[in-house]
């Protein structure tokens, strides 16, 4: 019986394991753990909702999800970004079912209550005739997402009214986001809509894959090497720095080889844009951007990103850079809906943008030759983690996963120009261990393990 309860003892055991570089496999498949995560992780962390370029004008809106909460993000008449629970305050109907659009108001199809872009209830069907004093209209506006924050065009929401400000939460990640999002005039823009598809995987697996795991590239993406698209060097992409950031975030700043110099400066961005980068970035940021060939990382818990450069699958030798954002929306312990945004510098030449888009589709879109194999592996983890042996909480079968790489051995590189704890190698589990630590911290927050039963 005790096997199936997540209590203080279980969490204490998790802490001990995580500190020694191990993660019990049951946390990937346990339904109780999943429920706990929804509340303690997704109910309290900043969740990426949209990029400002998806809402170019007043009246524009997009609909999104924070796990199971439908969210309506609007741009008001005055240009302010607002976000609401996308559910009518009268009977709870899903208010706006469109993915995006532009309009002045939202009318509920059930009884016809109408809300404006500010979330105000502006129309009640037959209001005066059917409601008397029992209803004060101003008390029935759309329910706002408790906290909204925007950083460099990235719009986040938080369901926790007591959450720390977005900027504090992002912390050191802001310095790296500035490189990726604010290097060129006008910032980045989203093309079209995010692609969406469903993968049989635990959200921690997908998050870790982007945020913390360049080690998988040499095997999972070996076909790219065999095609002659990726370098033959088996150590690629271990070169560079893995950087541990606060609040569970992390980034890998990958270089082409041990020299730390890039054969294609600024990830292959057009030379005409380089002076712009020089103007918008500090000398330390510029140096990093000049030399890195890939930036890949994540904002805890489930926003991943990769700044990648590839040739379109045309046999073309020129490479084109793009920035891909991912939300791994949990749909269950073994299922995620992937939301994948293609973004590119607004200031990039149009022809370059088009080629970048083709590079993205060929590599990291759901048809991309790199993406395809990732999803296959994630699904295999879910397949192998649902049984009695993998799910045993007493670890009778030694069912722990290995996060030992570099533990107590690899020392930080003090000369690295960026903030955070930077290790001089990307084949490392430092960011993963950091994610697990923060994950556990959130799970046990406001609860005393000593009291015993946790739930």
């Amino acid at each position, binding site marked *: 019986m005790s096997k199936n309860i997540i209590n203080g003892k279980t969490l204490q055991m998790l802490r001990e394991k995580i500190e020694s570089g191990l993660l019990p496999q049951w946390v990937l498949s346990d339904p109780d753990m999943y429920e706990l995560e929804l509340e303690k992780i997704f109910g309290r962390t900043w969740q990426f909702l949209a990029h400002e370029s998806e809402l170019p004008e007043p009246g524009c809106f997009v609909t999104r999800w924070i796990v199971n909460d439908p969210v309506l993000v609007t741009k008001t008449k005055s240009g302010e970004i607002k976000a609401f629970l996308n559910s009518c305050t009268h009977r709870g109907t899903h208010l*706006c*079912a*469109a*993915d*995006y*659009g532009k*309009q002045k108001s939202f009318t509920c199809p059930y009884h016809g209550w109408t809300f404006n872009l500010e979330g105000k209830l502006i129309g009640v069907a037959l209001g005066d005739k059917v409601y008397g004093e029992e209803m004060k209209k101003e008390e029935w506006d759309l329910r706002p997402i408790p906290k909204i924050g925007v950083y460099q065009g990235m719009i986040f929401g938080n369901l926790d009214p007591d959450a720390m400000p977005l900027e504090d939460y992002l912390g050191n990640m802001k310095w790296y986001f500035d490189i990726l999002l604010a290097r060129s005039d006008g910032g980045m823009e989203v*093309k*079209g*809509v995010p*692609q*969406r*598809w*469903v*993968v*049989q995987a635990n959200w921690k697996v997908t998050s870790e894959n982007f945020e913390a795991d360049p080690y998988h590239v040499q*095997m*999972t993406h*070996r*076909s*790219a090497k*065999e*095609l002659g698209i990726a370098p033959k060097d088996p150590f690629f992409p271990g070169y560079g720095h893995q950087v541990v950031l606060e609040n569970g975030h992390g980034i890998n700043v990958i270089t082409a080889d041990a020299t730390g110099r890039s054969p294609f400066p600024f990830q292959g961005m057009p030379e005409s844009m380089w002076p712009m980068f020089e103007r918008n970035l500090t000398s330390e940021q510029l140096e990093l951007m000049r030399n890195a060939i890939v930036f890949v990382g994540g904002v805890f818990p489930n926003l991943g990103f990769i700044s990648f450069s590839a040739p*379109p*699958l*045309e*046999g073309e030798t020129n490479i084109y850079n793009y920035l891909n954002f991912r939300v791994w929306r949990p749909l269950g312990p073994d299922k995620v*809906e992937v939301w994948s945004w*293609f973004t590119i510098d607004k200031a990039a030449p149009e022809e370059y943008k088009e080629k970048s*888009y*083709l590079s993205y*589709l*060929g590599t990291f*879109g*759901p*048809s991309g*030759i790199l*993406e*395809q*194999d990732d*999803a*296959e*592996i*994630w*699904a295999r983890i879910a*397949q192998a983690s649902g049984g009695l042996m993998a799910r045993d909480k007493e670890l009778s079968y030694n069912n722990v996963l290995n996060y030992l790489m570099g533990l107590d051995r690899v020392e930080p590189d003090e000369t690295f120009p960026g903030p955070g704890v930077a290790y001089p190698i990307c084949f490392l589990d430092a960011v993963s261990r950091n994610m697990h630590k923060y994950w556990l911290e959130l799970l046990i927050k406001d609860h005393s393990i000593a009291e015993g039963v946790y739930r």
Partner: protein
Amino acid sequence: MNPELQFDITNFLHHEAYLLDHRRYKEWLDLLADDLVYRMPARITTEGKHNEPNIMNEMTFFEETKKSLITRVKRLDTPSAWAEYSGPRQRHFISNIYIESSPKSGEYQVRSYFLYQRCRGSDLDIEQLHGERVDVLRKENGKWKIASRTIYPDQTVLRLINLSMFL
């Protein structure tokens, strides 16, 4: 409509489906014209009339040329294309084939419905995608070639773990 032409094109599309299902990709590539345009725009949900197409041409799932499809086929030949290792069993069900007016002489615009299903490994779930294709077919040296294909999926959120297949 010319029944012989209808029969000819129907046969061609059924044969193509057979080649794809049996992973005879090199033979499939031979059916594609050198100037092929092959794309699959995203399906979206918008406010508005029911007869609006709800298609987002700006974002696609595939945006391919013959050259890029050759690269994709080459990748499947490598020993480490895990998504297709071992190859999922797949079926392309092609129906409702209708020849529309030919925009250029010698080229025919052909509409068809597709239902794509596959099983991966010993998964119990069947992955599937369905929708409509609009092809432009032309005869080159007496043989049909696909000059362009636009694939309109019905799903906004794809219930497939990847798009490693050709549609």
